[in-house]
């Protein structure tokens, strides 16, 4: 009997090595440990053993059963692992197939730049305000210290409506409208469309401007410089240099044109900047006392500054589109680039 048990142990261990499936494992288990299994049969012979043999063989039988039970358990676990492995392998996919991405739209490039500009000024406490695009001579020119016959009107090729109104040539009229309705302090930016009779590779008859205005009891030219330098560093990068050149606008005094160091050559001089190292980006200045008088502010009691910039111009410093009329064709191949 001892021999039989030892033979079973050897046989089973041998057989387990050949097992590949759970089914085979189960039939092997039944072959030896089922009700008519070989081990069960051997154990039925236990009763015939002598008293002396019984505990010895009983112990041996338990050892065999226990070790084979462990062997079965191990084989089962191995089979489970193998099976899962196979299943996962079968479930493999081609991960290079495209993801199911929601189709995304894109904001118009001019709007992207406009939005960035708004964000920068809002961080400095400027409120976004808008105003009408159809304007009167009064708001577009007169109240901005540009009376009829002023040569500065030549610089604005104006679209007139048949009813005598005009399309604003800049966003500056909104300065007047805001100051008429609000007491200082005023700290606003005015994004919006403006119009001039101009149509070539660098001009569109409609364009976007951002106007800024800060009025308070004591606002200085040096603060104008501070706000614009801060804007330029955020918009064009921390190394951006800024240059203020005296200029003329009827509604500011002193007035300045403002250049930034060329974004292409970093100020060394190249074709984009006409070899000067500088690129003009905006006009600015201290609010002219006549403008304050037009809105019933007392120029001895308040001072302020204003600035205005062309959004297309700033956008194109980055995009370098040879014909800016492309902005308004709304060709999807163009819009998708930004």
């Amino acid at each position: 009997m001892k021999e039989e048990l030892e033979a079973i142990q050897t046989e089973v261990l041998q057989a387990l090595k050949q097992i590949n499936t759970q089914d085979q494992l189960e039939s092997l288990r039944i072959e030896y440990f089922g009700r008519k299994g070989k081990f069960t049969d051997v154990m039925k012979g236990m009763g015939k053993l002598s008293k002396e043999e019984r505990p010895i063989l009983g112990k041996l039988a338990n050892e065999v059963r226990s070790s084979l039970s462990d062997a079965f358990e191990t084989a089962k676990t191995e089979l489970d692992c193998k099976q899962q492995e196979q299943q996962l392998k079968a479930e493999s996919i081609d991960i290079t197939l495209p993801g199911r991405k929601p189709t995304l739209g894109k904001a118009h490039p001019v709007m992207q730049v406009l939005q960035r500009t708004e964000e920068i000024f809002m961080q400095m406490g400027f409120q976004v305000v808008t105003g009408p695009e159809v304007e009167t001579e009064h708001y577009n020119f007169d109240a901005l210290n540009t009376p009829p016959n002023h040569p500065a009107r030549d610089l604005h090729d104006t679209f007139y409506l048949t009813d005598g109104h005009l399309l604003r040539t800049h966003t500056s009229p909104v300065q007047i409208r805001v100051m008429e309705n609000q007491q200082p302090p005023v700290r606003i930016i005015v994004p919006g469309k403006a119009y001039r009779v101009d149509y070539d590779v660098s001009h569109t008859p409609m364009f976007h401007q951002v106007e800024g205005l800060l009025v308070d009891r004591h606002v200085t030219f040096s603060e104008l410089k501070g706000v614009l330098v801060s804007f330029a560093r955020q918009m064009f990068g921390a190394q951006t240099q800024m240059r203020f050149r005296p200029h003329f606008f009827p509604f500011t005094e002193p007035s300045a044109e403002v250049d930034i160091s060329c974004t292409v050559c970093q100020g060394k001089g190249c074709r984009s900047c006409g070899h000067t190292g500088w690129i003009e980006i905006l006009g600015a200045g201290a609010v002219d006392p006549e403008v304050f008088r037009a809105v019933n502010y007392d120029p001895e009691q308040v001072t302020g500054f204003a600035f205005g910039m062309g959004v297309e111009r700033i956008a194109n410093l980055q995009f370098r589109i040879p014909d800016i009329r492309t902005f308004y064709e709304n060709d999807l191949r163009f819009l998708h680039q930004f």
Partner: protein
Amino acid sequence: MNITLNWLKNYIDFDFAAEQLAEKLTMLGVEVETIKQLGVALDGVVVGKVISIKPHPNADKLVLCQVDIGKKDKLQIVCGAPNVHDGMVAPVATIGTELHSGVFIKKTKIRGEESYGMLCSENELGISPDAAGLMELSPELSIGTPLTEALGLDDTVLELEITPNRPDCLSLIGVAREVRAETGNELKHPQIELNESDTEIQDITSVTIDAPELCPRYAARIIKDVKVGESPDWLKQRLESVGIAVINNIVDITNYVLMEYGQPLHAFDYHKLNENRIVVRCAAEGERITTLDEYERKLTPDMLVIADAEKPVAVAGVMGGHETEITDSTRDVLLESAYFSPSSIRTTAKTMGLNTEASYRFERGADPENVIPALNRAAQLIAELAGGTLCKGIVDVYPGKREPIQITLRPERVNFILGTELEATEIEQILSRLGFGIEMVQQEGRDQEVAPTEDSVFQITVPSFRVDITREIDLIEEVARVYGYDNIPTTLPKGDIPVLVPNKLTEVRRRIKNFLLSSGMMEAINYSFVHPNCFEKIRLSEDNPLRDALKLQNPLSPEMSVLRSTLIPSLLNNAQHNHNHQINNIALFEISTVFVQDKEPARVSGILAGEIGDGVYGNPYKHPDFFDIKGIVEGALEVCGITDYAFKLTDEPTFHPGRNAELLLDSKRIGILGEAHPEVLENYELPYKAYLFELDLNALAGATDFAKRFKLIPIYPSIQRDLAIVVDKEMQSDLPIDIIYSTGGKLVESVKLFDVYVGDQVAEGKKSLAYTIMYHSATETLTDKAVNDLHDKVIRKLNQELNAELRM
């Protein structure tokens, strides 16, 4: 305006190179736009003299020249020009020269004879297209001098942009004054010495001003027996270098003095003036004049003219008359120097469509005190360069003489405005360099001060040429620009940040834009102007107020001649443009104001057409339909927090009559959407359906409420019941929903339509609608029985009201 470096040096000393000068002027506000070196390609070209000529032994058409270029050894140069002759002075390109054409001059053998340079034509030097023969130079030139120097080409032209407020800078002396502000060097005014004859000018002419408001000053001189002819080279060269056409010595001189002083002058042929006298007056009704450009022009009574005893002979300050102009036969010249009122000149020039050097300066403001110096300077040059004798004296009629402007300047105000800490003495120095008169005014109750301090007050006298300076702030700008904007400190605002007022329209616009972008639509921006036929193209009904669009008086083209009252035509144009370029996945939106009568409401509009989606495996292209556009509109409303709206079919001709809707909020239309009518598609040449919407953003902003409050999360479970009913095919699917809500009351949490079926399973003319109803109570757990009873009630009600059959 152009100036040259050497010319400028006639009026002030400075050591700046062209680039430095350009930088300084630009930072003073006189922007230098370009810098151009004259005669750059002439390095190595010198003045040479042909001292002998021999025939070339091996070539009939060539000769061997011995050329003197001012050195000990004469050069042998082989030459083939037809006009070469003994004693000729001509330009010589010496060995090592690279001509502008790229030709490099080296020692060569031509047909066996050595040649040490090249005698040049104007064409070869790039001076003119003339290639007929060698350029013949004046025999007076010193042999061996570089050609650039000999021709006055060793100079640099600066192109200046003068802002409209600075007419005083429209001259070389004006620019020299700016250089003085920078350097402090004194101006060098032209030395004027006049030899007058005994003929008194008063005896032979007179000037009458009938319109002193428009002509505050008019002065004249007469020069007799001039010889009209070509100007000397130096004068021609000067004018040409700054881009002024050379005409004859008299006219050239007036232009030269114009450039020097900024004072426009005009020369009349004295004998062609009727009664030899001048009357400054307004034109009479019906008068005409033929101007120098030989156009006959109509004059109106608001135009100032210079007339003789009988008729106009010049349009004052704008252009002279053809009849009295200087010609080769002119003997005696009446020279005009005057000051005209800027607005009068501006109106006349504008009406006539003329913009001349003279009108440009007068309309910006000339200097009345410049009239006599410029007149004398021109008289002197005419006497020198055109011969002639100068009559004694000047006729100077000056009815409009004005006292200089006086301004009080507070140095403390300068620093207040600029944010600087300038000393009063610095301010004083800057202003005095600019030519301002400065006097310190004693403050009451103060001791006599030795030097100005920040508390001093200056009394400033404005020089007559600074027409732009009338106020204290103008003086502050002068201080700022000369002190240097770059020297002003850079600080951040110290003032309080104003209270920001939230703006609902801005927020609605932002939310809808973000939603549309994440829905896969691209943002478009179109011009505000459209073709007036666009209303016809989108089939707006005759009485639609949107047709009443604002018109431009001066449109660029018919395509851009009226202001749009709706965004839809612009987006259809964009669809057409893209389709024409074989791009057919059209999903575009635009957010903009439109123009409706005197209002500018804000709109959002969108279009879906062709194939939408990415067109990749997993997200293939699909044709949009009505429910895509409706879903977009519903999403836009949702992001604005608007729920209480309704859709209703309309008869808007823009759309398919059975596939459109208006969006109603409080039974007011706030938007419209639908499938474009086939004729609209045809008008925009679109071969596929297009779905459009347009919403009124102002109405949305008015209805929205972004304030959010917490609602209790349901404690008791919801119970779901599905329901399928068969109804008439034409019935709207939202009718049962209304009935379910009204019947179930508070216990109906939500109703969703989840299926619509038409086909074999239901009778002809019928459809099946399937809904999921969630029942829920806020106060207890609903029992099955309670739900069943309620659900049965709902079914009965649907049957009664809509004749709906329960589908099993």
